[in-house]
């Protein structure tokens, strides 16, 4: 799979969570990429592992938007 195709998959997963009103509440980055903790206002939680560089860039763009919304 091309890097771009993999990124699209990861982006889609993240966008789906955001569309369902999940918020990024925690992140751990290590040698395997970024491990996101997501939380829904209703209390439901989820995890997402992002491996591609573009996805690891993209989630922080979302995070910044999230911060702006909260501010």
């Amino acid at each position, binding site marked *: 799979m*091309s*890097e*771009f195709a993999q990124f699209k998959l990861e982006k889609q997963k993240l966008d789906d969570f955001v569309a369902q009103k999940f918020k*990024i*509440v*925690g*992140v*751990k*980055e290590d040698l395997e990429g970024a491990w996101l903790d997501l939380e829904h206002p209703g209390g439901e939680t989820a995890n997402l592992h992002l491996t591609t560089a573009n996805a690891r*860039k*993209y989630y*922080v*763009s979302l*995070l*910044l938007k999230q*911060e702006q919304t909260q501010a």
Partner: protein
Amino acid sequence: MADLRINLAGIVSPNPFWLASAPPTNTGYQVQRAFEAGWGGAVWKTLGDPIINTSSRFAAIHFNGQRVAGFNNIELITDRPLEINLKEIYETKKRFPNHAIVVSLMVEPNREKWHEIVKKVEAVGVDGLELNFGCPHGMAERGMGAASGQQPDLVEVQTMWVKEAATTPVIVKLTPNITDITSTAKAAVRGGADAISLINTINSLAGVDIDSWNTIPHVGGKGSHGGYCGPAVKPIALHMVADCARNPEVGVPISGIGGISNWRDAVEFMLMGATGVQVCTAAMHHGFRIVEDMIDGLNNYLDEKGLASVTELIGKSVPRYSDWGNLDLNYAVVARIDTDTCINCNKCHIACEDTSHQCIDMLTDDQGQSYLQVREEDCVGCNLCAIVCPVDGAISMIEVSGNDAPMTWNERQEAIGKLSEGEDSTKKEAV
């Protein structure tokens, strides 16, 4: 026609093109010849206790048909008595009162020695002094040149000693043979330097003769490291000039040196913070008259840009030079191939396939003609295809707008850090 005059820390010259302290400025005859040709200033070849030079001194790197892409020398400072040099400096200044004559100096790290030579040199009417803390060979082994220039404390104290005696502006010439040139630049400023000049030559061995097994150059079968300069070192010099120019703790005028061969190079150095430039290798390669093209080219460029004075260029690109951590990660360019111009040599395809991101496809159209096309979604905008392409304009790097706002690495790390505040394991490095 624009005004080409510059004023570097009080040293005025009719244009920004100076000859660097080196073989071209060894004698009054040469410097006067240079001024007649149009050079605005000259830094006289380094004065100090006269040395003895070797026979066989220079070597050059010729690369793919370009002669003197790089130049190496093992020549030292002046081998002529101080009195003779001073007499010729006096005569030259008298004949060319409006040209800048700066004299390069190098003595051992001794206060009295510095005071003595400064007073003698200033007595003949020089416009400024340049302290040679950069020569990497021969003199360094005697505790001078780069040996001094690699130690910030020695740079500072010797600059201070010179400033105690000097009445003309003092330029400190820095060695590039150091990890962070701003450390010695700041030391020079602490010592009272009025300006800095950089870079001196880079430690080098030009080559080894694979038949005789001698070094290039060699002196009767033995070689030693020399100083490397010429067009090949320009990117290194430009970076060091820029690093000094953007450092607020440096903050003094800069005389740019390092591979400057034409007016374009001079403009680049001035945009990156140099007030003027010094040239050596290009003059050694092509003669003093290259300055005519430099002056014409610079004049035309300034006219095209609508600038009245060359000084308007100084430092204009400095704010655009930053640390990697401040670059926008969401900025994107992709390669586009103009199939009308492309000659189908496939160099871009091979380069991308073998050493980059495998995003240039070889396709066949309806007529059975092969063509190359970039899969833009996989292109990371590395520029390699455009670099290896032999046809100007066949590959362009096109800016593609993204949906995401600009975000630097440092901003990214800050955002992640905020999210994880309070957790020990979440410290994020900024660069």
